[in-house]
């Protein structure tokens, strides 16, 4: 359980979290799957929405917050699946189990890496909706805070369900079915918070931000408690 030599104990929890997150992000930086596949996928979604809704100048800006979050969720699914696909290769999962890292730390690390990727995705997609859908951003503070908290929630819930479905033969089909209904409140809350902010009523956004925060706390706690046992047995 301890580092060879026995002089130093296992690294602290924060260090463990950063180790796992760093590992995932390093794999990502080298494989560039998110950059070369997930990001273009998100772009295609933006185009498809415009095709479906007819780029009528009036409609797209009004529904842009909802479309943005749907695009984030759909492309986020790919990023989360990817985060667990890398565990399946070369017996990484066993290595992770044997590494002596705390299950909670592995959860936080993976969720952190996923959140970092989602944030990158959101920045690009946000740029996309501003340019393509002619969306005017106001009250940026509310928008950013809501997005950060929503991202934490999506990453946490996604990581919990990701490990549940990881290693199953049907994970590609099962994972979206499991996670999308669960993150429905995030989708709703984030969209409403954005709408409130963009419509110049930031005070109406705060209840939604609180809801997003409650969701985030619930799933971070859930993952903190359940991740270790799930990693052990699946």
């Amino acid at each position, binding site marked *: 359980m301890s580092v060879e030599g026995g002089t130093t104990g296992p690294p602290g929890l924060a260090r463990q979290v950063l180790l796992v997150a760093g590992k995932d992000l390093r794999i990502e930086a080298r494989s560039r799957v998110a950059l070369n596949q997930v990001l273009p996928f998100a772009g295609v979604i933006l185009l498809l929405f415009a095709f479906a809704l007819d780029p009528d100048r009036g409609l797209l800006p009004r529904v842009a917050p909802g479309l943005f979050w749907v695009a984030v969720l759909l492309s986020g699914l790919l990023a989360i699946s990817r985060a667990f696909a890398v565990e399946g290769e070369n017996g990484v999962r066993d290595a992770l189990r044997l590494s002596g890292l705390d299950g909670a730390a592995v959860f936080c690390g993976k969720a952190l890496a996923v959140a970092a990727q989602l944030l990158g995705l959101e920045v690009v997609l946000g740029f996309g909706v501003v340019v393509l859908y002619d969306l005017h951003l106001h009250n940026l503070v509310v928008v950013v805070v809501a997005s950060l908290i929503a991202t934490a929630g999506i990453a946490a819930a996604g990581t919990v369900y990701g490990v549940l479905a990881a290693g199953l033969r049907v994970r590609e089909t099962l994972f979206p079915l499991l996670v999308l209904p669960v993150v429905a409140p995030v989708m709703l809350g984030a969209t409403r918070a954005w709408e409130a902010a963009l419509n110049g009523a930031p005070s109406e956004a705060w209840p939604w931000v609180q809801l997003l925060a409650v969701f985030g706390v619930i799933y971070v706690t859930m993952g903190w408690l359940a991740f270790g046992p*799930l990693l052990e047995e699946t």
Partner: protein
Amino acid sequence: MRVATGGPGKAAEFWARRGTIVLGGLTVASLAVLVVLGLFVSDPDYQQGDAVRLMYLHVPAAWIAYLAYGVTSLASALYLWKRTRSPAWDTLAGASAEIGVLFTGLTLVLGSLWGRPVWNVWWAWDARVVSTAVLFFLYLGYLALRRVPADPAVRARRSAIAALAAFVDVPVVHFSVEWWRTLHQKGSVFNRELNPTIQGNLAWALLSGVFAFTCLYLYLLERRYQLAVMEEAIEERALEAAIAERRAEADVPPVRVPS
């Protein structure tokens, strides 16, 4: 609860069977009472007319859905808690969730049928309707996860965690959707006043509906549980047979391949 083969198990089995028959009989009788009260005795609503009779099915179905998910969550928690861990809780959780999904679907269909004459639409984006729909998909996912073949202990633990993860989501879904509808369009047509204060024979019909559906739930739960136990027994037996077959194969002299 396992399929008994004799001895004291036989007596337990006898009484369990007797209990099932009594429960089944009670279910049929209470459903008959519901039919009489709901279709003939109760008065039509002063606003909705005869459409209100759908309430006697819709509300009990929704109640059973919640009850079933409650039982699933409780059984899952009991499974996860080491001191009460038993495969029986896992089986119970799965059986209850199946019935829950069935009754959630039924609630949605009945609500849709009721909404058509009363609200003039098949589907309203009302808070409760939407959260029920999300609930339906949440537990459909749970059932899909349960069906993935795995080692029983692994599957049980995984399912139990998934059930609890879904369960803690329910209040968040509920509040988010509630706020969505109230913050977004105030004073919509589909307000809560559609459920007027119930009185007289309407209340009795509704009460009998709740009772009948609760009996039905318990009966179905017991049957589904027994079925699951038998399924497990068959699986075990098939596995044993397959192992025996492989063993027998090893005894057979090797087939000569003509050169």
